């Protein structure tokens, strides 16, 4: 006799009567119930009678936020924690320990645990570490393990890698594909990341690549070759996300020319659309790449040029990299840029070289409202978000902590949704800010739907994980944020303070079907934290294996056996299978 199969439903939640903003399903503030069962969104009819009911009447319900570009794990972040003890002294929000949470803090570079609590409080459920040096991938994954609650991934730095440049120079695309696939496996990386392609390697020779045509010393390839080469490999591998690029010449007056030339490089490359994305290049922290002028003195905004390009091309997505005018810590694999910052401000500087792969630098920065440069940087970020018409192409980031800490996202939302709020801020800045930017002439105020596109649906689609993340359709992961703000009775444009208050401390954050934040306090850590990485199969190449062995024997300070990140480092992986064996192109 066959017994009837009994499936026990656990962890059921019914979120009733909230104003739901779910752009992935086109839901724009409708009053709707959202049902959760076993960590997934389900139809409300599927729930048993014992479901926990959350009354979201008069509140906003959105999918959990996704940060597409942040620096929260790995060697340079940890260096930032170590070399800025004063960052903790200036942090009013240090966490005390309890049975549930760990003590910690740091205003711009918080400790790993605190990072997770702060993201969860904002209603964020995924944050992607944007720069992982391959040689230090273990360290990065160790820190990811120590960051509870939120899903994470790490982007593997490949834009200055010796073998990448050698294969590109020799035109060996098959070997390049095999090497990139191997690297992502070895580092458990999610995305192919380029930082100042060629320029960081040139920095090892005391030089830089400030345009896409500057040759890299010794390797004799240009940034153009590297960007096109890796973009091609990325699409042949069918990776979930496109190449994620921090272009050459970051943070210098007049760099918008380099930015637009960079974006034009991949116009002809066929986009692999299986994962649902439309772009083949992601321009990160676009704010730092939209500068006009020839020096800091005649520095002005060219946000409209970047925005016009993105508006008229579908192969690009971007994130902003807002400057929030705080004292913060800059950290990047763009070694020469950090040296430039050090010579500008004479503050302490840390520089590192990562053998055959990349480099990095760190410098504290005080973005001052009194400085015309910093004020214009602030305005450029807001301009970009308002001038780029489709929020599915322009995402919320501060390039944490480079433009400011991610904890400022609610304040940024208030600047985007309220002209009153940004005009009030602008009035406190240098008089050149309104003169050299177009911000005061822009009346657009973003809607909650558009904010949800910038912070949820957009990043999920761009990352190629929109089937699981960034939406509230049945079958998707139950990552949900509820904010105590009534969009029907309160005008966000007129009450920006109320908006900031509601978004700084979510009423509820639900991660993988478990309530982790209630009224801004951590109430559970959940069991669904996962690390995403991309596994492209079918590209094995004996010659590449030979080349890798050769590099390790000749140059690396570790042996090949000690290099790849073991499976045991990743506690709860989400492996995105790609490549031809996974049914790719």
């Amino acid at each position, binding site marked *: 006799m066959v017994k009837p199969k009994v499936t026990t439903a656990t962890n059921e939640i019914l979120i009733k009567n909230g104003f739901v903003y779910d752009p992935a399903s086109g839901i724009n503030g409708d009053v709707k119930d959202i049902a959760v069962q076993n960590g997934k969104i389900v139809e409300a009819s599927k729930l048993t009678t014992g479901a926990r009911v959350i009354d979201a009447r008069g509140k906003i319900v959105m999918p959990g936020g996704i940060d597409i570009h942040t620096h929260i794990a790995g060697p340079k972040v940890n260096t930032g924690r170590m*070399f*800025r*003890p*004063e*960052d903790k*002294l200036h942090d009013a929000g240090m966490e005390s320990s309890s049975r549930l949470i760990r003590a910690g803090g740091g205003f711009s570079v918080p400790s790993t645990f605190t990072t997770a609590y702060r993201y969860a409080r904002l209603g964020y459920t995924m944050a992607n570490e944007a720069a992982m040096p391959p040689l230090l991938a273990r360290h990065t994954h160790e820190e990811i393990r120590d960051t509870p609650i939120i899903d994470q991934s790490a982007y593997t730095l490949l834009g200055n890698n010796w073998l990448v440049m050698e294969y590109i120079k020799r035109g060996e695309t098959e070997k390049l594909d095999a090497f990139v696939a191997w690297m992502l496996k070895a580092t458990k990386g999610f995305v192919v990341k380029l930082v100042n392609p060629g320029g960081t390697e040139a920095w090892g020779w005391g030089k830089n690549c400030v345009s896409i045509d500057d040759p890299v010393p010794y390797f004799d390839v240009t940034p153009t070759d590297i960007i096109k080469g890796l973009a091609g490999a990325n699409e042949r591998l069918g990776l979930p996300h496109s190449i994620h690029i921090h272009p050459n010449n970051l943070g210098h007056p007049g760099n918008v020319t380099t930015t637009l030339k960079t974006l034009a490089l991949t116009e002809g490359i066929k986009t692999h659309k299986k994962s649902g994305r439309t772009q083949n290049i992601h321009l990160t922290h676009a704010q730092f790449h939209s500068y006009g002028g020839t020096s800091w003195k005649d520095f002005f905004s060219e946000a409209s040029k970047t925005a016009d390009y993105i508006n008229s091309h579908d192969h690009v997505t971007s994130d902003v990299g807002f400057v929030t005018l705080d004292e913060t810590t800059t950290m990047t694999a763009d070694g020469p840029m950090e040296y430039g910052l050090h010579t500008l401000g004479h*503050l*302490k500087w840390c520089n590192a070289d990562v053998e055959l792969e990349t480099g990095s630098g760190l410098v504290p920065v005080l973005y001052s409202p009194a400085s015309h440069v910093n004020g214009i940087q602030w305005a450029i970020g807001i301009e970009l978000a308002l001038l780029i018409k489709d929020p599915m192409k322009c995402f919320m980031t501060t390039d944490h902590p480079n433009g400011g800490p991610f904890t400022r996202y609610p304040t940024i939302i208030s600047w985007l949704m309220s002209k009153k709020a940004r005009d009030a801020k602008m009035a406190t800045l240098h008089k050149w800010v309104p003169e050299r930017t177009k911000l005061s002439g822009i009346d657009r105020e973003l809607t909650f739907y558009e904010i949800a596109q910038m912070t949820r649906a957009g990043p999920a689609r761009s990352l190629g994980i929109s089937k699981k993340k960034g939406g509230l359709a049945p079958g998707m992961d139950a990552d949900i944020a509820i904010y105590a703000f009534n969009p029907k009775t309160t005008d966000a444009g007129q009450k920006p303070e109320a908006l900031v208050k509601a978004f700084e401390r979510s009423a509820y954050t639900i991660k993988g079907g478990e309530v982790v934040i209630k009224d801004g306090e951590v109430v559970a850590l959940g069991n669904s934290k996962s690390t995403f990485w991309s596994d492209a199969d079918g590209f094995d190449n004996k010659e590449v294996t030979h080349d890798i062995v050769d590099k390790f024997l000749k140059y690396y300070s570790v042996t090949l056996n000690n290099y790849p990140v073991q499976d045991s480092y990743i506690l709860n992986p989400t492996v995105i299978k790609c490549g031809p064996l996974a049914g790719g192109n």
Partner: protein
Amino acid sequence: MEKITLTPKADEKYLVLEADCITPDAFAGKTLDEIKEMKVWEGNTTWPLGKFFDIIGTVADKAEDQAIVINGNVPRVKYIGSRMTTGAILCKGDVDMYCGAWMKGGSIIVKGNVDHFAGIQMEGGQLIIEGNAGNYLGASYRGDWRGMKGGEIVVNGNAGCDLGEYMIGGTITIKGNVDINAGIHAGRAVGSKEPGGKIVIYGNSPGRVGGQLIRGNIYVLGKIDNMMPGFALKETKELDFEGKMLPFNVFTGDRAEAGKGTLYVKA
């Protein structure tokens, strides 16, 4: 001024206390019972202040009228008078680290010795130490490049190393000798039109006085065993020093940092 006296209880044992509540700002306007209940940290545990001190006296309504007397030796009580803005504190014996740290106003007199980091990042007020001071007197917080901004520190005895590190403004006077690195990095965060701080050392130093000095004035009336090579002798001249004409060798530097500081060493 109203006076509150804290007398250490002789029979009370503890490791190290962090008592940043001992300030006129925190005491004023409270009752004695409330003051006895204020929290001090011992490691990761908190205790009421009254567990360690007998507390008597009268409480002032306003912090500027509040005086606090610590009637004994407390060489393991840290943060006394830290962040205070007004009022007065008299310590009759030794105190531990961070005495008067981040203070903005008022005055502290310590009859005994102070440990390290006294008066760091001080912005105003007076810190007078009749005994010796430890290292990093009037310096910056660890990692910070913004040191003492204002106010006055006077030490009748000797001071340790790195005093006035990253100093921006104010004065530090040491009547005795100092260890190495006096005034190191001073002036790093000084604006282009500000003069920087002033350090006066009546005694001797083994060396590295004014290392990486950017702006500010350092006077040494004793001897420096090893001068920093980054200082250039500009001239030797008689200067009015506290009403007396004294001969000084005047150095500028530190040239390694293109610094515009001045170091006066008695000739």
